[in-house]
């Protein structure tokens, strides 16, 4: 349809808006606002899905945007998309918030006489910018983040047309070291991508590939399939993680080598050596033994890396034995000044174990402008020298994400006219002279090419809320205004026409419907090691600063490089590892804490050569004694949720920006490095509470998150399914499979003549603890975000949370009850259980029988119904719920916590809860109801897999299954029969509808 139609049909309508008022009916007159022109595909009250592309990170996952009456209400994964295969991570789920964000830039702004930004008109803004460019085109520069191919091309065209000085691509977390390393090792300047599907041994050198890696959702899915115990009797792929701290990724590994930070390359080469000695690789590799690998024998490597020689030997042998092993290079957190050599070493290792070409795809040299930190720094130099008169900024927040020592802010002062294209304000737009308001990602056309063979398209799914333009159109308008010549040189038509032209070689409508064009990636031709390999200098990196601890600035699982900080859900959902929200923190080991004389919650000073930070200490055992770890992404001074504006303190930073303690950080080849500082720690004597959702990670043998060893699993598979009934669930995993199953059939717990008994299955072995389900639940069910102050009181409303336990908690029990060790992690221990905890829809629910007004009850199809408008708030149900999954509205959160226009994004199918009522998960009953309508229309019963709960839909590893327990063929029934199946806290005989599958303990890798 034409642009115009689209605008009209996406005109906002109020038909569904009514449901955004609180439970407990109000008496005001409700207006019915119909369409002016009703598009054929829209029926008010029914959802329409549009395929699009996620813009939250360069991975570019495919989206299905669920819209109601022309408003996106939920982002879901596009099943056809090869990257995420229908799944979507927490960041992607939260992306919807950017469109309905209270901060939205609503019209062009320019810096007025007062020095403040003032509203202006499009005409004026464009004229102003164009005039400035026309004055000195040569001194015009474009600086921005990674964009889709078409948009990149458009920018290049623009640069060419107006004769601008040039274009610089700045992407904080771009894999520059990997690209450089690829050139060094394969002689091709490209970004290899890693494919874990079918791998049997994954060796992670600190890439954090499950949280902040290059493509977390994709890799999580691949790994989960690669080690699914139901299809691999041997337990499938093993994961060995090399990292100084127990990150979420490490917690999913089978073995954890806590190498000294920065020595990963040494370890990689040592492993390569052992592998070759044990028969891995070919002659070309054996040749390396004398050269590159000469002095990387296990013993000396052990000394340097602080990894026991025997482990190196064993893992090396395992690598040699493995049929399809793969090694992942260090990520942001471990990019030292030797990042390129380290990464190179890992690539060499990959080559040795024969992963290159299969698990490691080396695409042909990448075309177009590539992200370059070095060039960015060069541009800053130029700006500082006054050689830039106009700077166009887009898709990046350099004022925040470039360390202050690089002097970007000062250099910006010297630029004549700073023009920022943005849909949300940030530190950079705050410094701009002209702010061009662009559409949000959901409002504009775009495309992306995360890798060869994957062309993904993004289409607008609602009518622009404000007087904004898509980046492309704005740029074209400016370019055309510069000069007739420029106008002539620029592509004709609107940005949309440009995009369509770029896709001319494809079936446009088919691409729109499918979300892009997906072909098999061109098989990377077998790549030989280049001669330059010998030139890799794999040595311990140099650190600046005199401190005793190595400062590790790791990317926050949700905030990424800081771009997530302004999305409420990403702030409220607690960190996957520490369960801390709304804050920055410093992780130190108990030994460090003792030496400093601080405790969990005390504020410590972290001083480096570049600056000093004060952070609340989080004491955890899962950390090397010689490091202090601080998350990136906080410390914003602009933004409703990013700064503390939502708490009534605009301009006040939330948390601290760890980059303030990092130097401009270039590695020996000019790439970006984060792991460069030694930090001196000090005890400030103060303490500051930070919102922490979970304080105890010791489950005291209560069988909430179970684990089972491969041995016991095999026994269970052949055993009679009856074992000794004694509880406790020992760490060695003998016979949980017997004792964690109790004699009842969840399918019984529904109305006698009901066709359904809804049930849910959670496979803890697949679950990585990534919190995608939590975010999905928040967005789907209109769960309010309560903010920092309320979170300090642990009043988050999350219907679904992820509990993190270390082992069974047995030792603590034996040690005596008084030892409450809030943190029982220890270095090298990867027995971490991530338990998804939501309402279990109990058959004999303790909450139901205590409610005096029948506000909660057992529905005919086995759900534990919660009727908000009947609830009077005695909170007895919540007391009596052993799983503690009920949440209470202490305030009128829906009114106070959703600034306009956030309410437009509320899901009209879910009642919005008012003050003083209890709420909880009901297995997405609104989706069940929707499916029931469809089924009844077609006069049939609901099919298995027809109802997909929000959490299930989001889960990157498909750890969650949902369906009808009364249908013996349904996936969930089969799962309930699984030998690993058990029910949380089964001793209470609550007869839950949720079945957990025990995590599998695969043990150490055998050499």
């Amino acid at each position, binding site marked *: 349809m034409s642009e115009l139609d689209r605008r009209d049909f996406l005109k906002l309508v109020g038909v569904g808006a009514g449901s955004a008022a609180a439970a407990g009916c109000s008496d005001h007159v409700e207006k019915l606002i119909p369409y002016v022109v009703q598009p054929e595909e829209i029926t008010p009250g029914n959802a329409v899905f549009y395929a699009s592309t996620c813009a939250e990170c360069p991975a570019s996952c495919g989206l299905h945007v669920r819209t109601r009456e022309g408003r996106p209400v939920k982002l879901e994964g596009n099943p056809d998309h090869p990257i995420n295969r229908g799944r979507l991570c927490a960041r992607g789920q939260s992306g919807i918030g950017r469109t309905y964000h209270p901060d939205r830039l609503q019209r062009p702004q320019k810096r007025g006489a007062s020095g403040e930004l003032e509203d202006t008109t499009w005409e004026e803004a464009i004229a102003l910018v164009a005039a400035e460019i026309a004055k000195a085109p040569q001194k015009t520069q474009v600086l921005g983040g990674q964009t889709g191919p078409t948009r990149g091309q458009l920018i290049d065209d623009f640069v060419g047309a107006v004769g601008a000085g040039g274009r610089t691509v700045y992407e904080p977390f771009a894999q520059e070291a990997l690209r450089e390393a690829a050139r060094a090792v394969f002689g091709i300047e490209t970004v290899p991508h890693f494919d874990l599907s079918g791998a049997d041994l994954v060796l992670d050198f600190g890439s954090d590939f499950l949280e902040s890696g290059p493509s977390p959702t994709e890799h999580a899915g691949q790994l989960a399939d690669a080690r699914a115990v139901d299809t691999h009797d041997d337990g499938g792929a093993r994961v060995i993680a090399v990292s100084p701290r127990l990150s979420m990724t490490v917690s999913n590994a089978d073995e954890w080598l806590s190498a000294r930070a920065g020595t990963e390359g040494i370890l990689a080469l040592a492993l390569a050596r052992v592998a070759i000695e044990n028969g891995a690789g070919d002659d070309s590799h054996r040749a390396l033994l004398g050269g590159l690998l000469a002095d990387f024998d296990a013993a000396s490597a052990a000394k340097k890396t602080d990894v026991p020689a025997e482990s190196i030997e064993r893992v090396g042998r395992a690598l040699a034995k493995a049929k399809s092993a793969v090694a992942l290079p260090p990520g942001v957190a471990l990019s030292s000044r030797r990042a390129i050599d380290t990464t190179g070493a890992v690539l060499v290792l990959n080559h040795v174990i024969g992963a290159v070409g299969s698990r490691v795809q080396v695409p042909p040299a990448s075309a177009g402008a590539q992200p370059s930190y070095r060039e960015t720094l060069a541009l800053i130099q130029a700006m500082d020298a006054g050689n830039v008169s106009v700077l166009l900024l887009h898709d990046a927040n350099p004022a925040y994400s470039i360390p202050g020592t690089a002097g970007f802010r000062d250099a910006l002062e010297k630029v004549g006219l700073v023009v920022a294209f943005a849909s949300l304000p940030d530190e950079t737009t705050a410094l701009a002279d002209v702010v061009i308001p662009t559409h949000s990602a959901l409002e504009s056309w775009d495309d992306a090419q995360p890798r060869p063979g994957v062309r993904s398209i993004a289409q607008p799914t609602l009518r622009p809320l404000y007087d904004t333009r898509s980046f492309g159109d704005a740029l074209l308008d400016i370019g055309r205004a510069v000069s007739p010549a420029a106008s002539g040189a620029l592509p004709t038509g609107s940005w949309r026409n440009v995009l369509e032209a770029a896709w001319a070689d494809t079936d446009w409508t088919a691409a729109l419907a499918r979300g892009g064009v997906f072909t098999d990636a061109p098989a990377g031709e077998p790549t030989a090691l280049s001669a330059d390999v010998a030139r890799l200098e794999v040595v311990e990196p140099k650190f600046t600063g005199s401190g005793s601890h190595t400062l590790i600035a790791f990317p926050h699982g949700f905030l990424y490089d800081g771009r997530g900080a302004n999305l409420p859900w990403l702030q409220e959902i607690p960190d996957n590892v520490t369960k801390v929200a709304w804050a920055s923190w410093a992780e130190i080991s108990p030994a460090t804490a003792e030496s400093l004389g601080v405790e969990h919650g005390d504020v410590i000073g972290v001083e480096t050569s570049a600056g000093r930070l004060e952070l609340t200490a989080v004491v955890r055992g899962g950390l090397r004694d010689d490091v202090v770890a601080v998350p990136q992404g906080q410390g914003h001074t602009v933004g409703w949720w990013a700064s503390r504006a939502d708490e009534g303190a605009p301009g006040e930073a939330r948390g601290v920006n760890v980059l303030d303690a990092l130097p401009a950080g270039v590695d020996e080849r000019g790439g970006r490095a984060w792991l460069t500082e030694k930090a001196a720690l000090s005890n400030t004597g103060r303490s500051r509470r930070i919102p922490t959702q979970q304080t105890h990670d010791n489950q005291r043998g209560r069988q909430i998150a179970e684990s089972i060893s491969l041995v016991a699993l095999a026994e269970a598979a052949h055993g009679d399914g009856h074992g000794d009934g004694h509880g406790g669930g020992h760490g060695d995993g003998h016979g949980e499979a017997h004792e964690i199953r109790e004699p009842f059939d969840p399918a019984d717990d529904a109305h006698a003549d009901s066709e359904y008994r809804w049930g849910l299955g959670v496979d803890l072995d697949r679950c990585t603890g990534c919190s995608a389900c939590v975010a999905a639940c928040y967005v789907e069910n209109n769960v309010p975000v309560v903010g920092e102050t309320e979170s300090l009181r642990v009043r988050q409303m999350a219907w679904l949370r992820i509990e993190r336990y270390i082992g069974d908690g047995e030792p603590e029990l034996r040690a005596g009850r008084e030892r409450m060790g809030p943190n029982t992690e220890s270095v090298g221990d990867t027995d971490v259980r991530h338990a998804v905890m939501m309402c279990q829809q109990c058959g004999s629910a303790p909450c*139901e029988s205590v409610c005096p007004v029948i506000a909660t009850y057992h529905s005919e199809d086995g759900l534990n119904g919660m009727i908000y408008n009947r609830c009077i708030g005695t909170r007895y149900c919540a007391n009596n719920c052993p799983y503690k999954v009920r949440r209470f509205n202490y305030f009128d959160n829906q009114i106070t916590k959703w600034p306009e226009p956030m309410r437009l994004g509320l899901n009209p199918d879910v009642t919005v809860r008012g003050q003083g009522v209890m709420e909880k998960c009901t297995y997405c009953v609104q989706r069940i109801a929707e499916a029931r309508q469809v089924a009844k229309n077609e006069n049939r019963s609901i099919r298995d897999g027809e109802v997909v709960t929000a959490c299930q839909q989001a889960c990157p590893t498909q750890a969650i299954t949902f369906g009808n327990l009364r249908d013996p063929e349904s996936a969930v029934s089969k799962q309930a029969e699984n030998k690993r199946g058990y029910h949380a806290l089964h001793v209470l005989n609550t007869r839950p509808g949720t079945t957990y599958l025990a995590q599998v303990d695969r043990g150490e890798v055998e050499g």
Partner: protein
Amino acid sequence: MPSLLGVFEAPEPVADAATRLKNRGFSEMEIYSPAAFEVLDDVLDEKPSRVRIYTLIGGLLGVVTGYTLTIWMANDWPIMIGGKPFSSIPIYTVIAFELTILFGGLATLIGLLVVGKLPYGSFGKTDEAYSARFSGEEFGLVVECSDRDVAEVDALLRSHDAKEVSLVGA
């Protein structure tokens, strides 16, 4: 017909005098007492007080209501709760018990009012013979008798050491 009022210091003489008079055939009598004394309870009327009937009926009513109410309401719109039966007698016994007490108690109050003929008299008025001394420490015995019996009754009252005898409403 005149009434004689004898004023006494203690309950027992009143009881004796009243009993004697009754045996003599004087039926219209009334006793005023500042406090409850068992000796006086059955002097004028031996029949046990009927208050207990009220209490009994009230209590029975309560227990029946308790069970019917709960069971009917639970089955009027049967809703599954915690996997428990709709009519769970042991649980509803609590309600039944409380209602037994409640109804019994209220019935007793009613019983007191009906049997004790309360509220008595018209507002602000009392019997001619009654006076505040009887809410002090003294007892009163009022006997209605024909003129010719006055002397006899008077003598009898005084013989039961009434400290004074006066003629009321002549």
